[in-house]
């Protein structure tokens, strides 16, 4: 499903070479739940950006749904992001001037889906995520948990293959964080591969597979039996 082979990512900072990722080999199956853990600077965000095609590896291969996606041009990569990848961010990244429903609609607008279909899909999703009475609220009128649920709705509205979440509970209190996490975990039933980057060992422990990173290397890749 997803396969990284000998992936390296090197940044040039000033006149110094920084290896953010060193020789990463990974493969994820459909519906897998993976948490990526490690201290800051260990390369977990870079890994997530690479998986989300927001960044290109310096060397190595990346196969998504059986096809290599590194050689694709900007237009084609954007299409892959649109159709196969969903993002959930720590700081939600909702467009402040758009309502909750419009934020959820955004990926479908970019994909050129007709307005009627968009409306229908948004409605179903808002209903499912308990946001039915919040459709016309602007992000600043929503609580943190509601905002993240809108963001998850937006990330899943295109039925992606993989959902990438970067510290999805980082800006939320504990109770709300658990709720959001449950929502994310529920997505696996739809066959979505879930990759969560987190600091929190307690959150990491919930996943079947835990990857620990340090200095751009994978130091452990454990599967727990749930």
């Amino acid at each position: 499903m997803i396969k990284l082979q000998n992936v390296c990512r090197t940044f040039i900072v000033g006149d110094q070479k920084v290896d953010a990722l060193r020789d990463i080999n990974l493969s994820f199956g459909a519906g897998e739940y993976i948490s990526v853990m490690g201290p800051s600077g260990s390369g977990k965000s870079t890994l997530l950006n690479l998986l989300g095609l927001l960044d290109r590896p310096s060397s190595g291969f990346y196969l998504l749904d059986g096809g290599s996606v590194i050689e694709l041009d900007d237009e084609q990569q954007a299409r892959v992001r649109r159709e196969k990848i969903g993002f959930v961010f720590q700081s939600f990244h909702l467009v402040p001037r758009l309502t909750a429903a419009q934020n959820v609609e955004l990926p479908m607008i970019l994909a050129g889906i007709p307005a009627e279909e968009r409306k229908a899909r948004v409605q179903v999703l808002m209903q499912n995520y308990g946001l039915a009475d919040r459709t016309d609220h602007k992000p600043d009128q929503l609580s943190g948990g509601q905002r993240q649920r809108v963001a998850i709705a937006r990330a899943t509205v295109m039925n992606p293959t993989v959902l990438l979440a970067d510290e999805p509970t980082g800006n939320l209190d504990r109770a709300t964080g658990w709720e959001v996490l449950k929502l994310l975990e529920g997505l696996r039933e739809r066959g979505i591969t879930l990759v969560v980057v987190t600091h929190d060992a307690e959150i990491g422990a919930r996943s079947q597979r835990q990857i620990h990173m340090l200095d751009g290397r994978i130091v452990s890749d454990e599967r727990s039996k749930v």
Partner: protein
Amino acid sequence: MKLIDTLQFASGSLRGSPTRTLLMMLAMSIGVAAVVVLTALGEGARRYVVNQFSSLGTNLVIVLPGRTETAGIGPGLLVGQIPREISLDDAQAILRSTAVKRIAPLTVGAATISHDALNREVVVLGSTADLLEVRHMAMALGRFLPAGDLHDTTSVCVLGEKIRHELFGNARAVGQWVRLGDRRFRVIGVLASQGESMGMRTDELVIIPVASAHQLFNTSGLFRVLVEARSRDSIGQAQHEAEQILFARHNGEKDVTVITQDAVLATFDRILTALTMAVGGIAAISLAVAGVLIMNVMLIAVAQRVKEIGLLKALGAPAGQIRKLFFAEAVLLSGIGSVAGLALGYAGSAIIGQMYPSLPVSPPWWAVLAATATALGTGVLFSVWPARRAARLDPVAALAGR
């Protein structure tokens, strides 16, 4: 992404910062309005002059003494030198041309007109009966100069409306005697009030037979001969034949100038059109300034919306789409700005038209078109750079707000 969605998204982000959007539209619309109003003024001035020339008469060829080499107005016309005069017989001879319908010789002088105890200085025009037709004048009372031989020195005069009023007030003027210089003239008619025409107020004129004027001023030459051609097509022929006739009568010496009204008109037309375009061009500079303003604000917008751009990229918008969104914003901005500017400009022109009713103020179509095109053009042109900058943003850095 569909076009309609692109436009909706762009207008949404414009509405997102209403003050900035309104200010940019204001700048754009002031630029467009300036072009519209200024060219409307220039065009108004041009049409005013053209109208004045047309009211001078139609199909006119003007014969003046002296020779100038230019097609338009020579210095001779402006200072009125008379190297060799044109006599009444010369004027009469022009009628031999088949292209000439009628002529009106003109002699001009100043004299004191008096009636009872009232007197004032007036411009006296010596001419013939045909002047009425040639110059498109109309009578208010009585009749114009009697037709007859050019050399008849009848003591009759026709007064301008203002002169009549000043000398006679509400009393009957036609049939009364007035004194002009050292001669007495009987008033046979009063001109209808026409206002000003080419700097000559017919309201303050006194017209007497040309031969009488020659006696009064003790001259024998003519100031001008107005020649009316039979039709528009025969103007050239009339000009040529009038020249030939006069050269022949002056022993082949080319000492008269024959100009056509069209040539003078064309000169004025060219000058004033150039002026209008120059003024419009100056106004268009403000449009370029508005364009720079739009670029500046768009760059700020890109900087402020870095996270949003990053998000759009993460959600699957290719660079081209981001460019299109910013383009759409610029086009909407300058489009709505120009429409507002056109409305403002037309309103301004209408107000000026109300204030100066004699000036036919109306913006020329080419200026309206050029202003709108320039506004849209600068809007799009100056958004290229901001749009490219937005499209090139690195999504990872953009999402982090860097």
